[in-house]
């Protein structure tokens, strides 16, 4: 039933036989507004803005002043509806355009929208169809402007957007860090021709050059030479061919290398040179390969000449010639490497195909000022980067009826770098890149699959009052299971695969099925219980000597961190033994010397002058925050150090959220004059970190937090827990003192680090003088 896609279809005969599953594609159409469409030679990309209504868990403090009974919980949890903004991008073959337009017309309720922004070569061709079907006026936007706008947007908002392609490496895709400043860069767009654009700022770009030898040349000339019609088929032919049969190499002329010029014998001296001097027949594959090399090398050479002239090192490649095709990414990479002697790397983009649509959409949404917000890729709703290698899946590729999707959530907070990062450009949050580490990848994928049953159970339990919860939870299971399957085959689908991305994907999927906070009740119960012990714990410190006290505080912090529903080893214990307590946890801890043990240095430091301000990234609810963190920061406050507690903006596992922490702190302040005074004098501040992840990306933190950190002259950063201090930030270099502590609650990971389960990491780092001055 699927038609062959290709620009050369004379009449656009439409395939109407497909039915679109409304749950999957064109989601949230009811509230959609601001449409944009980018119609290319074979693919259509549709963009719209919509609002998503989903449930969020809110906590609200009871009024405790009236009466206080022991049995009452500390705060109440309510589930509320919240509306958030989301950008939807859908990519499909032009063959489906009519079906899709019909579908949109049928489902679009909103009538405010009057225009649809359009770009791409096909926008003109389909103008009448769109206007007739959707009753929207087609407003054409300049293609290049849209492309650049889209490119700026993804580079700014999507971590791991750009990657280097390495065909023979363990991981073909090497994702790049998000650079704090994305400008200036060069964009080489290889469509039917080539445009070379220098981008210096959001709205400042210039087409500095181009070439007529591009994707159209490969396609057109390739079709003439091989009688093969489709672009994809040509690439497939090329991937099987031997260009040395058609090209005249240096060794064909010299008999070997041309030593004095450093030209190796295998270098192509004359593309298609052999077909001029021999009468033999050439295979289609060989000619296609020769053509591919010729065009890729030529583009690479020009790109390098322009990069050199304008002194630019960041060079991104896009356009339908590239679009995820391993074959062309490889030849372009090779060419750039050859012509710049490795000084410039060819960079590619995960969402390259969407740039035009994103840009056209942004053009239309300028009054909403979308660039003032931070956006995040929604892993639940995005299909991710598919491997389109013709070798891997030729059939599917050739007759693709798949709809590729990208969804971006508008984040409530604007995200920026932690000002205390030593070098923001080289900061990588994640400790292990599972894309490159196959063993670790296997283990963690298995782990997350194993844990899925438990998560589903927990999700259902959190919504006992709702009968359809089980059904939703099942849908969640399928979705996440499918994601894990995808990641097993294409670890690079969403950028570098990491424990963080696996956890975040799970949170996104849970949210998608309205399980905003499966741990809310557990957190509530544990917070209640821990609060009861707070004074007792604080009192117990009074009898201790200074040295003893410091050690007990650290031990308490570590023991508190054992209470972690995110770790399977612990959640098993907690499920089976609800009485498992703080003291037992302390006994579980490894004896000193710990796996990583900088305790002595830390104590020596404490004997010196107090820190000015400590920034503490907290982890779990309950015992961890109340009996571990609070006594510890209480001591810091007494020493004269200001404290900023940074907690999650949204829920993730049993991590304490900012709104929960507000209530807990009030309650503790009511019991403890030290905390009370500190709050009153603003020496203790609670700030949200802008994230809803069990891990921590110090390059995407709430802007307010960054301001507070700067204003208070923060000179100590404490990061607690496996997610934040081990899976991420273990190697993060800060420009001030830092303390990273965690209990390894996973025997596999502990073994990898050379220890056993419940091993302790206590990492205290002081930047060297020179670095500290930054």
């Amino acid at each position, binding site marked *: 039933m699927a038609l062959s896609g290709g620009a050369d279809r004379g009449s656009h005969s439409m395939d109407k036989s497909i039915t679109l599953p409304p749950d999957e594609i064109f989601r949230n159409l009811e509230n959609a507004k601001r449409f944009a469409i980018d119609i290319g030679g074979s693919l259509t990309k549709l963009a719209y803005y919509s609002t998503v209504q989903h449930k969020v868990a809110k906590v609200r403090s009871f009024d405790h002043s009236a009466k206080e009974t022991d049995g009452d919980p500390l705060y109440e949890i309510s589930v509320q509806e919240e509306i958030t903004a989301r950008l939807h991008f859908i990519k499909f073959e032009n063959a489906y355009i009519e079906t899709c337009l019909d579908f949109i017309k049928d489902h679009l309720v909103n009538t405010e929208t009057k225009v649809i922004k359009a770009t791409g070569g096909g926008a003109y061709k389909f103008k009448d169809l769109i206007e007739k079907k959707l009753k929207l006026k087609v407003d054409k936007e300049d293609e290049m402007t849209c492309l650049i706008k889209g490119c700026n947007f993804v580079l700014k908002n999507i971590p791991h957007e750009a990657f280097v392609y390495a065909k023979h490496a363990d991981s073909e895709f090497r994702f790049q860090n998000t650079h704090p400043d994305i400008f200036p860069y060069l964009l080489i767009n290889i469509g039917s021709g080539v445009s070379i654009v220098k981008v210096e700022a959001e709205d400042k770009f210039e087409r500095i050059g181009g070439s*007529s030898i591009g994707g159209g040349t490969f396609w057109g000339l390739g079709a003439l030479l091989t009688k093969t019609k489709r672009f994809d088929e040509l690439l497939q032919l090329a991937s099987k061919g031997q260009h040395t049969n058609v090209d005249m190499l240096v060794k064909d*002329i010299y*008999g070997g290398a041309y030593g004095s010029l450093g030209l190796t014998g295998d270098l*192509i001296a*004359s*593309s*298609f040179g052999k077909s*001029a*001097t021999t009468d033999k027949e050439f295979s289609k594959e060989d000619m296609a390969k020769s053509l591919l090399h*010729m065009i890729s090398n030529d583009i690479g050479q020009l790109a390098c000449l322009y990069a050199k002239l304008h002194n630019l090192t960041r060079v991104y490649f896009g356009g339908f010639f590239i679009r995820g095709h391993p074959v062309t990414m490889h030849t372009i990479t090779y060419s750039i490497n050859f012509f710049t002697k490795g000084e410039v790397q060819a960079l590619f983009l995960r969402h390259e195909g969407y740039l035009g649509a994103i840009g056209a959409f942004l053009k239309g949404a300028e009054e909403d000022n979308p660039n003032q917000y931070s956006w995040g890729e929604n892993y639940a709703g995005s299909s991710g980067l598919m491997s389109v290698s013709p070798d891997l899946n030729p059939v599917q590729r050739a007759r693709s009826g798949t709809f590729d999707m990208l969804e971006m959530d508008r984040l409530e907070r604007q995200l920026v770098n932690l000002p205390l990062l030593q070098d923001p450009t080289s900061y990588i949050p994640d400790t292990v890149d599972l894309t490159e580490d196959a063993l670790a990848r296997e283990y963690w994928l298995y782990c997350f699959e194993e844990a899925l049953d438990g998560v589903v159970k927990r999700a259902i339990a959190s919504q006992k009052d709702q009968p359809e919860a089980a059904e939703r939870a099942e849908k969640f299971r399928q979705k996440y299971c499918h994601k894990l399957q995808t990641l097993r085959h294409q670890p690079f689908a969403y950028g570098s695969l990491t424990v963080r991305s696996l956890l975040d994907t799970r949170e996104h999927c849970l949210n998608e099925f309205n399980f905003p906070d499966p741990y809310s009740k557990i957190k509530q119960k544990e917070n209640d219980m821990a609060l009861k012990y707070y004074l007792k714990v604080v009192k117990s410190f009074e009898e201790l000597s200074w040295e003893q006290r410091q050690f007990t505080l650290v031990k308490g912090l570590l023991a508190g961190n054992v209470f972690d529903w995110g770790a399977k080893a612990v959640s098993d214990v907690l499920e089976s033994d609800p009485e498992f307590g703080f003291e037992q946890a302390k006994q579980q801890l490894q004896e000193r010397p710990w796996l990583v043990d900088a305790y002595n240095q830390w104590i020596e430091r404490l004997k010196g002058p107090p820190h000015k301000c400590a920034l503490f990234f907290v982890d779990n609810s309950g015992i961890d925050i109340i009996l571990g963190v609070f006594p510890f920061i209480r001591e810091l406050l007494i020493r004269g150090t200001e404290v900023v507690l940074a907690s999650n903006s949204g829920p993730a596992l049993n991590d304490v959220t900012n709104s929960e922490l507000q209530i807990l702190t009030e309650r503790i302040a009511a019991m403890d004059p030290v905390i009370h005074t500190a709050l009153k004098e603003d020496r203790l501040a609670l700030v949200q970190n802008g994230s809803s992840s069990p891990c921590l990306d110090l390059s995407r933190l709430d802007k307010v937090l960054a301001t507070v950190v700067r204003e208070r002259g923060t000179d100590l950063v404490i990061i607690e827990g496996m997610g934040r201090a081990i899976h991420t930030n273990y190697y993060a270099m800060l420009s001030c003192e830092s303390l990273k502590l965690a209990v390894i609650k996973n025997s596999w990971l502990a073994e990898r680090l050379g220890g056993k389960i419940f091993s302790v990491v206590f990492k205290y780092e002081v930047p060297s003088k020179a670095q500290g001055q930054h």
Partner: protein
Amino acid sequence: MSKITLPAYANVYISEGKKPFPWFGMDIGGTLVKLVYFEPKDITAEEEQEEVENLKSIRRYLTSNTAYGKTGVRDVHLELRNLTICGRTGNLHFIRFPTVAMHRFIQMGRDKHFSSLHTTLCATGGGAYKFENDFRTMADLELLKLDELDCLIQGLLYIDSVGFNGHPECYYFENPSDTQNCIKRPCCLDNLFPMLLVNIGSGVSILAVNEKDSYKRVTGTSLGGGTFLGLCCLLTGCETFEEALEMASKGDSTNVDKLVKDIYGGDYQRFGLQGSAVASSFGHMMSKEKRDSISKEDLARATLVTITNNIGSIARMCAVNEPGDQAALYRAFRVYRIPSEQKLPTISREYMKIERVVFVGNFLRINTVSTKLLAYAMDFWSKGQLKALFLEHEGYFGAVGAFLELLKSAKVRRGGVKPDSLSMQAFLLCQAMYHVTSPKSCLAFEYF
């Protein structure tokens, strides 16, 4: 610009002396073998008598024919007459044949007992390496292998200095941007350096030449004459360069290429692209309908235009990217005894820029479509800053360079180039620059 005449290499360069005939120079390329042969016209009766039969037969064979075998050709129109070299006067002949016929050529050398003539066979080009062993084993001949780029430049400078039978070797196109009034004009290569030398053979080499002996290969591309012919053969079934060019001359590339106006309806104003500019070479051929109705002539023309424009584009980028060789200019200063500690100001990039792009190579033979297109492309894209220059003996300079080496190899060079002329040129160039760049730098000239 001040005019400075280059030294006449023929007189300065080679001393008197006797070098046994025959005098050959050979350049064995990927597609073509280029051969230059000096036919002495001042043979005395005594010499005539001494001349061995072999030698005589070679001379007669080469000079009395214009075609050799099926594929060898003597370019009679290029012959340089009454040339005096090494004290001998004669004509320089230019002969070419396809590299695939190389083995037949070697056999001929064997059959004619070339080895008995005790001459050195000076050869350059890749084939000098590739066929060295064949020469040795099949014909008992030793090759003197020479670097092709050295030969190219020396040959070019020599031919330019002796001129083309009283006319200049070099030419350019007046009004390159106006196809109706574009006229070929001879010119003298007065201010030669720095220049970009683009040699279009099977592939393309691009050299930045700062002085006679100072050059570097900037880059190259595999999209050259071999690509044009190779693609034409595959697309049209033609067999020779002449056939391909003949077809191209009758074709219309706009039926094959997608132009800016085909996409945007007119100019792409946002980026100042003219509607008539090619947006995608062979872009129309993505459509099956158009593929089915296209003529061979159109395809040949499009291939020619694509390859030519691409070479022009790369050459232009190299010209603007190449900062020029400051060291070469400084060396010139030293001749005039500027103390070495005198710190010279950095010469501004503006003045180091290459303004002349010289195109050579056999791709340009009988190929006015390409020469005019290159002239147009250089002028248009550089907004008149770059000038395309061409030479009448397009593809033979390597062979001439090898030929010169033969004469040089036995004799002592008499001093080579006089420093004066080149240095003076550099000096004047600098003077022009310093007046603009920095008033302080005038100090440097108090020494003069």
